[in-house]
């Protein structure tokens, strides 16, 4: 119960931070961090899949509403949430269908390599989808690629920084 409230509060906080601050950042004119992805990444993996998709969609919709890009983030978020368990499973190196509570995708539970790859892969999936949907063209593709790389890099950087600053003290069992 406590955990749920904490998750919801973190969710709201990150969404507000995204809408109020991060959306107005554009480093070098094109790099905008997608901080709200952190809220999605930190969701418990054992949630029902359909609920995860709906949460992702709703988050994307809120971000879209404030950025006037209806449909872009909601699509990309839903897709990211769909791929997320597969990535986690792949990084765990097992085909275990059930996720235990210990499998929370946070530093302290997982090592740096795990967290880094998890964040990087999911962020790039989100950014590629979102930016391609937003530009809707392959013209000037070099610049689109640059934007994708820049955004992904910035997002991963910010998310990892925040994750390691607010490092939770978790007893690891291994």
């Amino acid at each position, binding site marked *: 119960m406590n955990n749920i409230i904490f998750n919801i509060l973190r969710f709201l906080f990150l969404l507000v931070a995204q809408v*109020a601050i991060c959306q107005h950042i554009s480093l070098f004119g094109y790099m905008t961090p997608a901080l709200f992805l952190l809220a999605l990444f930190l969701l418990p993996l054992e949630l*029902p*899949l*359909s609920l995860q*998709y*709906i949460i*992702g*969609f709703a988050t*994307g919709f809120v971000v*879209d*509403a*404030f950025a*006037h*890009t*209806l*449909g*872009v983030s*909601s*699509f990309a978020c*839903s*897709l990211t949430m*769909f791929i997320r368990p597969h990535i986690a499973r792949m990084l765990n190196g097992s085909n275990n269908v059930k996720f235990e509570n210990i499998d929370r995708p946070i530093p302290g539970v997982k090592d740096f390599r795990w967290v880094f790859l998890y964040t990087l892969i999911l962020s790039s999936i989100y950014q590629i989808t979102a930016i391609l*949907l937003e530009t*809707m063209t392959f013209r000037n593709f070099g610049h689109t690629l640059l934007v994708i790389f820049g955004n992904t890099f910035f997002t991963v950087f910010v998310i990892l920084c925040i994750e390691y600053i607010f490092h939770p003290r978790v007893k690891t069992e291994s």
Partner: protein
Amino acid sequence: MNNLIEFFKKAFHIIVLAVLLIVSIVMLGKSLAFNDYSLSRVVQSIVGPIQKSGASMIHRFRLGPENEQLVKQNIELMRERDNMFIEKTDTMLTEMSKPDSTNTKRMRMYDYTYAHVIFRTTDRTFNYMIVDKGSNDGISRDMAVLSPEGVAGVITDVSPNFSTVRPILHPECRISAVVTPANQNGTVIWEGTDPHVANLEAIPQHSEINIGDSVFTNGFSNIFPKGLFIGTVKEVQVGNNASFLTIRVSLATKYTDIYTVYLVENLYKAELDTLKAHFKDE
């Protein structure tokens, strides 16, 4: 049948995902479609108020630069007012052309700049203000100082980066003024202790002055352009001995919170002063 239910149980999340993705694509298509604002209008009506309050909050931090910009814009507008110019009839042209406006020459007589008050007194007998521009910024002695509300004073001393202003709240600051609609010329002098009120002197007793009449500069002094607002008549007293009225004027300028001032330069001041000097010599 059982198989079907099993299948739905297994594939339920895939169906949810498909529905969500399709909804996203529909929204995307709607927002891309030409001239179809139905969806974005609904969203905007919810999000708009939040964004508006956020924007106004951020705007608060930018008020300073924006004020500077507005002051500059004000100056541009003030420079174009009619009392900034003198109009001369060109006699050479008059003889040749028809007597219409084409033979009048419009010459700029006054120019504006602005400054900020960094120090001021209002409670002394000899009050003064200091503004943050000096001779490096083209400020010179005897430039007129205006507040956004009206006449404020005259520059008396200039250093490279700062200038001293003698406000109306100084017994030696005399500003020739005209009171309308009686159209009588007089002089505004401050001699009291109240920073909101000055006296208007040399108005003959026969003139009809009402409370609330406006007092403007009359442009006799070469310092102030014509028609700048000084204040409104607050009190009219018939003096017991002289042939003049004693008029109290409530000043338009709020000296207690003055920050931005406009400085007026008379471009022909040197020329006019030379003439005046000749007059004195004779």
